[in-house]
């Protein structure tokens, strides 16, 4: 299968996924109680006022009419207006998206820089003291709930070492350096449990490769340990790890919600949580679709890398 064909196929399936997800989101909003009108009127609401506002916002129309209207507008690139903030959804999401993407990038950099060397180091001599320490640390760090880790990091780096001011977030526009030096800490909070997961995964993947016939053959032929490791084992061991890292990135996007809350970062995750509780349908729908696009894109990259790394997949 050539790459262009694959890309077309992937784009088609992306649209299928988008339609499915937008429909699920829409139906989800039909199922959960409450709507934006009730939220905005609060305990001052009277039946007449609720009715009037619903009429104004077109909430009284047929369910499917509303969905297709939304779909039609979305196809034209119009994602509507936030019922809570009365501004365009695209405007609301723009800046927040870049903040969350930075947060993700920072934590992925941490994950890659730390976990791969650590995984190789640990599996280099299985059951050696380095391995034991690494395994022990990974097991401990994976056992700490994310928000708890965020608080511990805030305490250590913010209040004791005073490396950053908790709660004082800088926009990239204000000062990019200050922005990055703030984001390092939430990035670390997200990365630590993921580092542990990737190390663990990579380690078991390498150990499995070391146990295979071809490694034993290579060993018996007198190849050096390092040679076997980098020529054969690592390449094969990294394939499942790449899938795993793509999952981790998706997970980081999803988990940024809690870390954004703990550190007070005005990112996408926080906007999503607030929009769900405000029943701000247009915003939720747009964010969900955005996340889908990112995740599908990640999976696509993984598939391409897969082909490149594992000749057997390409033959098929």
């Amino acid at each position: 299968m050539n790459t262009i064909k694959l890309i077309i196929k992937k784009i088609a399936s992306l649209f299928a996924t988008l339609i499915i997800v937008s429909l699920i989101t829409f139906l989800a909003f039909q199922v959960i109680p409450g709507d934006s009108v009730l939220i905005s009127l609060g305990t001052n609401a009277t039946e007449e006022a609720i009715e009037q506002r619903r009429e104004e916002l077109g909430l009284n129309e047929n369910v499917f009419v509303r969905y297709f209207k939304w779909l039609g507008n979305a196809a034209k690139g119009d994602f509507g207006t936030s019922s809570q903030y009365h501004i365009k959804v695209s405007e609301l999401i723009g800046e927040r998206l870049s903040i969350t993407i930075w947060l993700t990038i920072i934590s992925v950099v941490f994950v890659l820089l730390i976990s791969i060397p650590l995984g190789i180091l640990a599996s280099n001599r299985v059951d050696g003291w380095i391995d034991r320490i690494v395994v022990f640390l990974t097991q401990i760090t994976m056992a700490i709930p994310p928000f708890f880790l965020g608080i511990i990091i805030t305490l250590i780096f913010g209040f004791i070492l005073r490396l950053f001011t908790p709660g004082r977030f800088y926009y990239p526009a204000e000062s990019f350096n200050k922005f990055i030096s703030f984001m390092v800490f939430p990035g670390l909070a997200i990365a630590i449990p993921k580092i542990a997961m990737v190390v663990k995964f990579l380690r078991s993947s390498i150990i499995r490769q070391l146990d295979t016939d071809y490694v034993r053959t290579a060993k018996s032929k007198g190849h050096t340990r390092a040679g076997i490791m980098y020529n054969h084992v690592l390449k094969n061991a990294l394939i499942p790890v790449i899938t795993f890292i793509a999952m981790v990135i998706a997970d980081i996007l999803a988990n940024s919600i809690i870390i954004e809350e703990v550190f007070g970062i005005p990112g996408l995750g926080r906007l999503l949580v607030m929009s769900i509780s405000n029943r701000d349908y247009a915003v939720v729908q747009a964010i969900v679709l955005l996340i889908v696009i990112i995740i599908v894109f990640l999976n696509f990259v993984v598939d391409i890398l897969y082909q490149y790394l594992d000749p057997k997949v390409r033959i098929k």
Partner: protein
Amino acid sequence: MRRRKKNISFYLGLIIISLVIIFVVMGIFWTPYDPNGMSAALKNSPPSLAHLFGTDNFGRDILSRVMVGAKTTFLVAFFTVLIGASIGTIIGALTGYYGGLFDEVLMRLNDGLASFPSILLALVFVSIIGTGKYNIILALGVLFIPSYARIIRSEFITLKEKDFVKNAELMGANDFRIMFVHILPNTKPIFISSVSIGFNNAVLAESSLSYLNLGVQPPDASLGRMLSEAQPYLFTAPWYVIFPGIMIILMILGFSLLNDSV
């Protein structure tokens, strides 16, 4: 050398898990105090002989609450992984082995579920089946399916090209046999490490759901609920967060150690 190490972590894990289970089982029959019993006079008192783990903001005995909370968390995590791993494995096996349209459709649904905000999903579940002590198991279980499906699928895609599978096919074994007798056992190392990660994640997800107030309802305790309830008292009553925290860490650590040595 290798054997001995395996044994050490196996026994260590076994001991930790046995302690946790003894603790949990004891909590079913006996706790030092009524886990929900309040006392204004004892609010936020530090650990003492009468209250080994101290008391919380309602003057409730934290030891008793950790005992019943650990039970709830343990059961929630166990059944979540059971649901997620079993259904995820079946889906991953089928899609990985057959590929084609079936694979395509399920993977799209999978993508959809994986990218769907879990909070919204949890809210939908709650609206349909209601909040309740064990309803979160179902919600979490479903949330866990996609990750297992994806891992098993990618294993199957690699393994089905192997010689032993080709041999089995030539010998006329049926698909079901090939999938579950020949291929599946070979996914064991990856499967086990994802189960141990899954158990860990289920415990953590329970705490996140409690954070959103969708899980166990007060005044009942779970470790996750206790952690999020303790958060405002981090500075004034640190013991409130330490003991449920240690319990969670032990629970996860014990299982990881056991898994590593299987």
